């Protein structure tokens, strides 16, 4: 087997991502395939289990949730210094949100939103046991989803913050004092479902849901709340930068068969602002500790931290 055209894809602070072409011979026939290599960096903005990510992709392969085919997983450090997996490359589509605010993508927003939140509804509708994820993802009870997730991200803030964050701490106090109702179901949560983490075309069709590294079992409203985090409006005042929030929620409800109780959705949206801030804080921490001095680790800390604080204020009606 030979590898050529190896090139790093810029962006991606939690994994190093490379594209390359593999060529080999089967019998007498030459074969080649475009592939993606995702490798753990020396220090990440979030520490995640690549096996869970790998299995999450595999769980949805062939379903209505479009995902690239996963091929190989290496969890050891031997071959490439850090764990990695290799997947097919879904070539010819875009992921960068910036393109969406330009022609010809502007006309696709309504359809893209329909696809985006329908697919999220399909993820919420999935039975975690039936798709084989209860064996790799830690179990959680419906009434404990909120407590576990808030605890995880508050712990990360406690460990990684480099300066006091009064807005986030006020949000956490509110979240603990006003817990949401138990989850309607314990489902698969993608964990980072937002504009920018899927492959789209000019017609608003979605060809691949990416970045499953934070996938876990939990309340499906968590994913909906993350998609509604104002930080992902990209300054356009619309859910995901695409459509008004009520439209996004209606699409999701229809696809998932679940209800987005306004009070519960409010809780999960505010929670996701806290989670977002924990991620940006972790990014700064990885740089400060010297574990990863890539510029991509500084960018979210500088560009997103204050915007995430403003998102909290917006959600809480204080902006």
């Amino acid at each position, binding site marked *: 087997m030979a590898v050529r055209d190896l090139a790093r894809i810029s962006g991606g602070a939690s994994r190093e991502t490379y594209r390359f072409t593999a060529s080999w011979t089967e019998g007498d026939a030459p074969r080649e395939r475009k592939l993606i290599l995702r490798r753990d960096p020396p220090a990440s903005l979030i520490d995640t289990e690549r096996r869970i990510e790998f299995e999450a992709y595999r769980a949805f392969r062939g379903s209505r949730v479009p995902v690239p085919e996963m091929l190989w997983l290496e969890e050891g450090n031997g071959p490439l210094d850090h764990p990695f997996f290799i997947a097919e490359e879904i070539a010819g589509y875009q992921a960068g949100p910036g393109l969406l605010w330009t022609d010809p993508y502007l006309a696709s927003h309504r359809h893209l939103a329909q696809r985006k939140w329908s697919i999220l509804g399909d993820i919420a509708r999935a039975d975690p046991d039936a798709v084989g994820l209860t064996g790799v993802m830690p179990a959680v009870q419906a009434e404990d989803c909120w407590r576990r997730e808030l605890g995880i991200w508050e712990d990360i803030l406690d460990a990684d913050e480099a300066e006091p964050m009064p807005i986030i701490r006020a949000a956490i*106090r509110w979240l603990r004092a006003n817990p949401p109702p138990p989850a309607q179901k314990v489902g698969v949560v993608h964990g980072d479902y937002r504009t920018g983490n899927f492959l789209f075309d000019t017609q608003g069709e979605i060809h691949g849901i990416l970045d499953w590294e934070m996938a876990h079992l939990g309340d499906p409203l968590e994913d909906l709340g993350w998609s509604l985090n104002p930080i992902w409006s990209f300054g356009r005042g619309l859910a995901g930068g695409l459509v008004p929030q009520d439209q996004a929620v209606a699409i999701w409800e229809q696809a998932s068969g679940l209800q987005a109780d306004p009070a519960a959705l409010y809780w999960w949206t505010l929670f996701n602002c806290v989670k977002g801030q924990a991620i940006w804080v972790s990014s700064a921490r990885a740089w400060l500790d010297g574990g990863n001095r890539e510029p991509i680790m500084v960018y979210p800390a500088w560009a997103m931290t204050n915007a995430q604080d403003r998102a909290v204020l917006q959600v809480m009606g204080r902006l």
Partner: protein
Amino acid sequence: MIPPVPAVLIDLAGKVAANAAPDVNPTDRAGALGLSAMLLGLAAEAWDSAAHHLVVENRTLRGLLAQGAAYVGPPAERPEDDFRLSALGAENGRLRAALIILHAAVEGRDQVLEDAIWAELGASTERRKIKGSAV
């Protein structure tokens, strides 16, 4: 800004120099320099007003903490005689830590002071807001 601007600029200087080498993979070079340029732009945007904003904010925070002395004893007074960004930032951190304690103490007990704290927190995000901020 965390990580601190001077430390990041030193690191970026090294990256720019390293990427001047002719044998760097063009894709890697484009990625590193593109992001470095964005960070330089963010640093430049914050530079002129950074000290002013910290002085204003620290004085406002001292006022709020004095206002809330009945609930939480304010932190020890310190002379405002070091205007380096690192010193102003350290003092800002000390005062914001005290504000978190005061904020928690007055929630549900003193609506006027609580609203004043929220107003200052909102103002603090206006001071830190960059062009093109997502929110």
